């Protein structure tokens, strides 16, 4: 049994310590935003935030997460009250099939929490590990730029960060 803090809530997890975080999130906690793409840490669709850093959850075993805070896309905002990064992706219609988008948003979110004014080059470099088969890259880049503007007027941090469970 291990306690895992996800989106501000504590979960008792009964799984082998070598279980990838992605399986815990999807199967045990039923948070389905993070996607299984390649399972090899090569596509980015499983990306979540751990202690402020973008992490590939499919290659991150539970045993590395002792005492750490996990944030998934569900932790950023809701359909009723989307976070700035989510609003930006909706407003730019930066989704085609959408499979890669949760991972894209999580890495962009981690970048913007660290650097609220990244250059276009920095955004491209940051999102480079993420694959999108639909070819929505230009819209994704526009969405991240829009998120920067939205965050200028809103709180850049995820809604659950710092709030009590």
């Amino acid at each position, binding site marked *: 049994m291990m306690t895992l803090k996800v989106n501000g809530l504590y979960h008792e997890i009964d799984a082998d310590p070598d279980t990838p975080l992605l399986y815990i999130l999807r199967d045990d906690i039923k948070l389905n935003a993070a996607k299984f793409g390649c399972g090899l840490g090569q596509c980015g669709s499983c990306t979540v935030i751990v202690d402020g850093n973008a992490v590939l959850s499919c*290659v991150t075993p539970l045993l590395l997460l002792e005492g750490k805070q996990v944030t998934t896309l569900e932790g950023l905002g809701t359909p009723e009250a989307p976070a700035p990064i989510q609003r930006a992706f909706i407003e730019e219609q930066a989704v085609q099939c959408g499979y890669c988008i949760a991972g894209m948003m999580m890495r962009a979110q981690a970048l913007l929490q660290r650097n609220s004014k990244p250059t276009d080059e920095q955004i491209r470099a940051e999102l480079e590990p993420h694959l999108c088969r639909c070819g929505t890259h230009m819209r994704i880049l526009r969405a991240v730029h829009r998120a920067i503007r939205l965050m200028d007027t809103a709180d850049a941090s995820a809604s659950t960060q710092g709030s009590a469970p």
Partner: protein
Amino acid sequence: MGKSRIIGGGIAALVIAGAAAVFAIAWRPAIAAIEPPAPQSFDTALVKRGRYLAAIGNCNDCHTVRGGKSFAGGLPVPTPFGTIFSSNITPDAETGIGRWSEAAFRRAMRSGVDRDGQHLYPTFPYDHFTNVTDADDQALYAYLMTRQPVRAPARENELSFPLDQRFVIAGWKLLFLRHGTYQPDSAQSLEWNRGAYLVEGLAHCGSCHTPRNALGAERASAQFAGGDVDNWHAYAINAQSPAPVPWDADALFAYLRDGWHPDHGVARGPMAQVVSNLSSAPQDDIRAIATYMAGVFGAPTPDRKRQGEAVLAQVKSPAVMQASKINAAGAAIYAAACATCHETDRSPPYGGVNLALSTAIAGPDPRNVANIVLSGVRPVEGERSPIMPGFAASMNDGQISALLNYLRARFSNQPAWTGVEKTVEDARRTQTVFLQTSRGPRNARADATQRDKP
């Protein structure tokens, strides 16, 4: 009175003679500037040969900043003496080599002196380039003079006195610059000689793989015994090679050509750029380099050969993983995060090399493994290439240290490393700086992005 005048005169004469000697050693004339030659004035076949040679010389690697224009220089090269910035070798008239004649270019290659007569720092490996023939210099010149001119003024080197005085380099050259260090050996094959010419000259392999002395010169007595480049170790590529399976000419050829070999793994760090460049060089030249270097490695001793065969056999029929009682934390991390790719039979990119074959783990220090665990192996743009995710964000220094100690104990027959945690800390600091300043992947294609390397 008369005596002291004589002594005084003697001292003055000595000072003048000394100054004259320094002047004679240090002074080089400027070579007259020329009108930048039109690109069409160069023979296309010559330019093409120059391109191959430039790939073998890895020129773009130091003379291009990450994400910058090709050959425009400005790359900071950290050395124990300070930071030296690479120069603009595009044919821009004002800031590049546009006004250099072929003779001026040849002098720079041969003696490390620029067109104005200034001594160049040996970060520019003229201790090797001095071996390049006139014909090859001509081709390289033709290639560089037909590149896109880029206006990019040189950046001021960050060196302290007296090293910021360029005449000091004349003294260094007197001590360490030897011309004709490559001599053809008629007892050897043509291929071997071609390889020797390239390795000792343009390819300047020893610049990274040979350790340097206190004055920054390669130690001739320890040629290819392993050196340092950035925060990486360049392995010994002679009889002291730590590779678990001994190298031979075929393996070297495949590795230099494709960037990986099933018995050795992938080229990464500074070597990734080298093999990326070599992949566009003529196959015969790569074969020649492999042939010569196989001789430098030498035939493995029977013991070494047996060990290599044992490792290969072990890899082909992996034993059931045994629970480690000594380093349970490292073993658990390996099993959960590494073995899922590194201990399957899947070929790259679906699986990684079995770590019993890893030179990094058998190497003298844990720097290279630390770098790889932290930042992974980025794929090369537009090519089939190895890939590995980095774990900098998901493992802390303690976890990586435990993992590295476990890997060393399980996969090599070498004694434990010392100072692993410190190495990991340093590697993380270096990589953080790297990630902040870099735009592209460390092992990007030749024309796209670059990396630091002396």
